[in-house]
């Protein structure tokens, strides 16, 4: 679960679990998770594994995971980069972190994570998605498996209704075409009104990017009110960057 919403998420899961009879949910306080990301990340992580386990880790395909040498290793992450997320005994986490530093793997904080995830087109909980917005207006329709048609899941009925009636708003990517910085809550000046949900200065594109929730019929060129000034922005389909390379074509100016 997202650390910030751990308590309400677990409470919700336990309430739902009551319907399923003998289902136990236990928290694993004895485990920790480290994300090691970047083109060289996997090669550095496997240096910390026993020699006979390294090939197994390197053979993992993207989005696949395996328990290897007492660690749970997944070729996943929330940065848009290649790399591993490693679940390991909590008592070993600090030592492993320092061993990675010694292998020239830099410690990073949430600021670095935020620019990477936004460049990669990934939502931030509490900003681009939250309890007040449904998945279809948050760019998350691809995460909902409506098929097979008979599959029951929590939330199916209201989402079917939304699909049938039309979802009024959508989450889009924005590239600011003038100098400045997009930030959450700035207004997108379009009929029906829109709002920036996330914004930052993209180190890779050297200009500001963000997400905004806007009405479905919004045109590709919009105006965003940035610190009281109307600035031109362009709607693009995320991601903005993949594996360090720009996917955004022809930025003006």
């Amino acid at each position, binding site marked *: 679960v997202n650390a910030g919403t751990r308590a309400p998420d677990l409470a919700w899961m336990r309430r739902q679990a009551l319907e399923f009879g003998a289902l136990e949910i236990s928290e694993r306080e004895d485990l920790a998770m480290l994300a090691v990301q970047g083109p060289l990340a996997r090669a550095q992580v496997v240096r910390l594994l026993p020699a006979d386990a390294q090939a197994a880790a390197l053979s993992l395909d993207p989005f696949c995971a395996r328990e290897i040498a007492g660690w749970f290793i997944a070729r996943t992450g929330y940065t848009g980069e290649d790399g591993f997320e490693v679940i390991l005994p909590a008592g070993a986490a600090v030592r492993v972190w320092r061993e990675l530093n010694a292998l020239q793997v830099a410690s990073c904080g949430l*600021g670095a994570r935020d620019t990477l995830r936004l460049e990669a087109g990934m939502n931030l909980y509490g900003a681009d998605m939250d309890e007040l917005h449904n998945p279809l207006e948050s760019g998350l329709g691809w995460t909902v498996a409506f098929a097979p048609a008979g599959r029951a899941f929590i939330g199916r009925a209201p989402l079917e209704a939304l699909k049938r009636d039309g979802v009024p708003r959508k989450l889009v990517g924005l590239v600011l075409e003038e*100098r*400045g*910085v997009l*930030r959450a809550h700035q207004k997108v000046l379009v009929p029906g009104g829109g709002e920036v949900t996330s914004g*930052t*200065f993209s180190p890779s594109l050297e200009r*500001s990017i963000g997400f905004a929730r806007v009405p479905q019929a919004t045109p590709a060129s919009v105006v965003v009110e940035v*610190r009281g000034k109307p600035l031109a922005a362009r709607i693009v389909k995320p991601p903005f960057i993949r594996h360090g390379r720009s996917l955004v074509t022809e930025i003006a100016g």
Partner: protein
Amino acid sequence: MSHVPPDLKYTKTHEWLRALPGGEIEMGITDHAQHALGDLVFVEVPQAGRSLAAGEACAVIESVKAASDLYCPFAASVVTGNPELAHSPELINEDPYGRGWVMRVRPSAAGALAGLLAAADYQALVASEP
């Protein structure tokens, strides 16, 4: 420990001021402020000729994590903003008291720097912040 040049004046909002020959005053943000903001990505300086009231926000300094206003502590008119900052905002991080100067103003009245903090007072202010 942030660098606080002894010959400058300071404000509680982390600006520094330097009297230039000829009556102009040069301003910027302190080493403490640039460090707190992190890598700067955007700076907007005021236009030459603009009139500023005391305490008016007159420049915008943005890092990835935050946007910050720079305030002129006295009434003045803008002589010039630093033209380098449009393409190199990082000058403020690298050299906040030198090449990272933000703007030069001409105060409306004499004695503009009189009420401002001396280096030792600014140093004490920074030390007392959480």
